[in-house]
């Protein structure tokens, strides 16, 4: 099992959700967790102003999605995210996907563990 953490543009969330749902619903059910984050990527040097005083600032709002998947679906999930999250010509700021090994999953409702709990 893997835990996929992807940082995407907020306006792409809906597309990514649709893509993931299509991909994952055949096997696993589609489930994910979304958080609001701030991204600092290539475009450094952004500044904010407070009464004329410059402050280095967070670059731009990003959406982080966390999704636990069984091994069989990892690549498909990645592809789904990449396709749905990429801006038309692939622009700086489109984001990243991180894949982490996932040792255990527990479904709180049932206490079930492992792949079937995802």
């Amino acid at each position, binding site marked *: 099992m893997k835990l996929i953490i992807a940082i995407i543009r907020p*306006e792409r969330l809906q*597309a990514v959700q649709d893509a993931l749902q299509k991909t994952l619903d055949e096997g696993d059910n589609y489930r994910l967790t979304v958080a609001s984050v701030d991204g600092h990527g290539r475009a450094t040097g952004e500044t904010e*102003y407070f009464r004329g005083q410059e402050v280095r600032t967070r670059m*731009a*709002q990003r959406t982080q999605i966390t999704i636990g998947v069984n091994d069989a679906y990892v690549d498909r999930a990645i592809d789904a995210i990449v396709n749905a999250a990429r801006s038309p010509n692939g622009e700086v*700021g489109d984001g990243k996907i991180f894949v982490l090994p996932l040792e255990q999953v527990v479904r709180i409702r049932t206490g079930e563990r492992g792949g079937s709990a995802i």
Partner: protein
Amino acid sequence: MLSAAATLPFLVLAQATDLAQAAPTPTPAVQQVIDSGSTAWMLMSSAMVLLMVPGLALFYAGMVRRKNVLTTMLHSFVAMAVIGLHWVLIGYSLAFGHSVGGLGIIGWNWDYVAFQGLSYDKLFADKGVPELVFAMFQGKFAIITPALISGAVAERFSFRAYILFIVLWATFVYCPLAHMVWAEGGWLFKLGVLDFAGGTVVHIASGFSALILAMMVGNRRDYPDGAIMPNSLVLTLTGAGLLWFGWFGFNAGSAVAVQSPVAGSIAVLAFTTTQTAAAAAALVWMLLEWRHTGKPTSLGVASGIVAGLVAITPAAGHVTPLSAIIIGAIGSVVCFFAVQLKAWHKKDDSLDAFGVHGIGGLWGALATGIFCFIPVKGLISGEGITQLGKQALGAGVGIAMAVVGTLVIGTIVNAILGLRVTDQQERDGLDITIHGERGYHL
């Protein structure tokens, strides 16, 4: 002396009819004394209309995405600064100066420039209030009207272009229209077109301009597929509350044009119709949604409130409270469907400035001709469609001015500064890219 003034209320009807017949009444020196009650009410009304501007800022700002919340508020706030000055410097003269050439299209009075000739103790007509407070009251209208437009082009309009646009628009659309409809020498005024507090001058003008401008600047990059969610409907509701409060000043303060003492029967009538129309409209919008989608939304209630207030604006001092309920309710229906049409025509009037102000204002202008009973009688009083015809003419002129004016001014501003921010700025949000700020660090 004051007892002369005291008999005035009984003349209101007669007077108002006169006004409607509109031969440029030579103002006789009837009322030489300040009426402190009327002045208090005009001071208050002016302050309340100013408060509508932050109210509008909140109303609009709540509906945009987090990354554009400040720029959206600024559209309203900067109008307080820019048009606030414009009005004092030339706006009042353009709107309420002597009709240039007697044509009733635009005014001018060198005296009024920077209020230089408006001595603080000069009274306004026979209303017992200083002319300065009338000028201030009207100035607040001039501020909020262009700010209303900003809702249609939110989240993508260049800030520099916006400032230039509203200055030109105030000069070439708003002031002439205000002159035609409200100034003693205005041709629509003389014709007897009724516009109590600005259905045509404020709402039709801003609403139709909004639509044109939205089309000129184009849709937001994420519209309609980008799940554009309001950053905080709490702000929008708060704004709607402030707008409702301020609108009492907007409408009931407009009694200054028709009666003395200003804080009298017509002001109270306008207050009452404002309340009843807004309540009816809020309820109707909510019920429409409930039926339509199964969800009565808070944004629906807020939108209904504004739609009702818009619809009653031109009619406020001319109709009964019961008529106001009907005007508000129908106003809600027409605005609701106008807004739904967007799903079909896909023009990104982002915060529905056209759907609510344009359509609501148009309905209100016509409804005035249907329901009015004072100072002239309209359709339901069995006086036929004369007044309705006048109202339609007024609305038509308003629409024409708005559409043509915005097309021309928009084209000019586009040529000079460009109407639209860059794609990158739009994507990262205007707050950080243009203003160097973020709305929240929570």
